[in-house]
């Protein structure tokens, strides 16, 4: 694999995803409508129910809308990561996966290409949502747009590799609804997306609190939250980075012809 070959292949995989995304206008719409509903309707309804006290990175009292923006950005990344996973399963059923895996490139690199392509779309959608927040006059500092870029990328890669890993185990398209129930919702609700962690602890839901503390999605959200205000959450950064590494390695292992796809039965002797 030469550098030129690798780059051309990476561009091919990425541009294919972008072209496909462009053809599915509904996908961008639903990617924006979903968090927008939360932002406008949910946040309005709960504005006075949740009192958010001053917690880092915030320096003053903030509107609930402002609080949930990082969580909704995380939601955009999470949904797109799962969508990429769905696309992998679809490609596998359509046989296109075979074509990709028989390209003369190391398998990890092909999977990495898929991951980069999906993450590119994730970040794109996250910015589209930030623009929507600006339209709704949600108070997010403009400098945050810039600072958020690397962490949106990192969060997108982490959630994308989670999607990649799931695609090893989700054998059929029909099972995707199950993935939604067992991955997206618990990850989203057991996180800091909608309420700060201390709220969970205070309410006495100790086990939810403990799960949320170790939820990589929660750390992706915190990483974004801090970055929007020009701050860096080191702990969350490490959690997200390590989760990314683990998910991606497990996904590569899952796609390994010697181990993955079909369970290999040990030969005697």
């Amino acid at each position: 694999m030469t550098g030129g070959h690798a780059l051309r292949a990476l561009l091919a995989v990425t541009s294919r995803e972008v072209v496909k995304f462009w053809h599915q206008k509904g996908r961008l719409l639903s990617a924006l409508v979903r968090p927008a509903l939360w932002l406008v309707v949910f946040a309005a309804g709960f504005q006075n129910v949740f009192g958010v006290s001053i917690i880092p990175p915030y320096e003053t009292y903030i509107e609930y809308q402002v609080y949930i923006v990082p969580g909704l950005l995380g939601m955009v990344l999470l949904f797109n990561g799962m969508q990429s996973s769905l696309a992998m399963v679809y490609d596998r059923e359509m046989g296109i996966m075979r074509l990709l895996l028989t390209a003369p490139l190391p398998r990890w690199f092909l999977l990495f290409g898929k991951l980069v392509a999906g993450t590119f779309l994730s970040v794109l959608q996250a910015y589209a949502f930030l623009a929507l927040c600006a339209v709704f006059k949600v108070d997010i500092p403009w400098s945050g747009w810039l600072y958020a870029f690397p962490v949106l990328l990192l969060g997108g890669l982490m959630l994308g590799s989670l999607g990649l890993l799931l695609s090893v185990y989700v054998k059929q398209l029909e099972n995707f609804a199950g993935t939604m129930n067992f991955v997206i919702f618990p990850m989203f609700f057991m996180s800091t997306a909608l309420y700060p962690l201390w709220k969970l602890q205070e309410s006495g839901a100790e086990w939810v609190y403990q799960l949320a503390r170790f939820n990589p999605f929660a750390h992706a959200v915190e990483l974004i939250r801090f970055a929007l205000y020009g701050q860096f959450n080191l702990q969350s950064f490490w959690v997200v980075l390590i989760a990314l590494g683990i998910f991606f390695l497990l996904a590569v292992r899952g796609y390994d012809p010697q181990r993955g796809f079909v369970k290999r039965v040990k030969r005697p002797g």
Partner: protein
Amino acid sequence: MKSSVKESVLNIDNLVKSYGSVKALDGVSFQVRAGEFLALLGPNGAGKTTLFQLLTGLFVADEGKILVMGQDIRHNVVNVLAKIGVVFQQPTLDLDLTVRANLNFHARLHGMRGSKARQRISEELERLGILDSADQVCRSLSGGNRRKVELARALLHEPRILLMDEATVGLDPASRRMLVDYVYELCVTRDLAVVWTTHLVDETERARQVVVLHKGHVLARGTPAELLAHTGEKNMTDAFLSLTGNSSGESEINIQQVK
């Protein structure tokens, strides 16, 4: 002496692959030389698809070796894949993209530059007589033309070995004839080694070598004439039926190719 004996470009030695307790392949061996058309004939479930998955590196054999131009696929899968062109049984075109976009995707995966890719795409489409359709969306093509696009794609990177897995399934007779003829011709004009799996006996009649696969075993191996002589039948269909019909899959009949 007709012609000098060419080295075999594909060497398959004693392949074994099991799924659980089922042995999909049990000691399969054969060789293919450059310019040779090898027909892999077998009923459904004979192990053809498994063999294909091993040949394309999608799975790894439990035992045995696959050597492509002397390189072991187990250790050099990337190099090996660069020398192989594949048409899968299941269609693998992105139906929403144009013919050119599909081919271009493949060219990039094989590391071709833009200008080279454009040139190769036009060449292959032209030879197959479908250059006019280059900018059409694949969904709008007939089944026969979709297969042609897949063949063009498999040839883009100028492989030395072409693998065709039940490539004519679902095609009308005219398209089937055309595809078979075209691939036979490729062997001659490009010195390409071809492995053509099928369960349709008539596609094997002009093959240099026929390997009859049944329940993961090689039942017979030789030229069509040798298979006829061996079974005492008058045509390949009867020969095939007599080989697969009365066998328990235990005994391997060896008809070595005349050198």
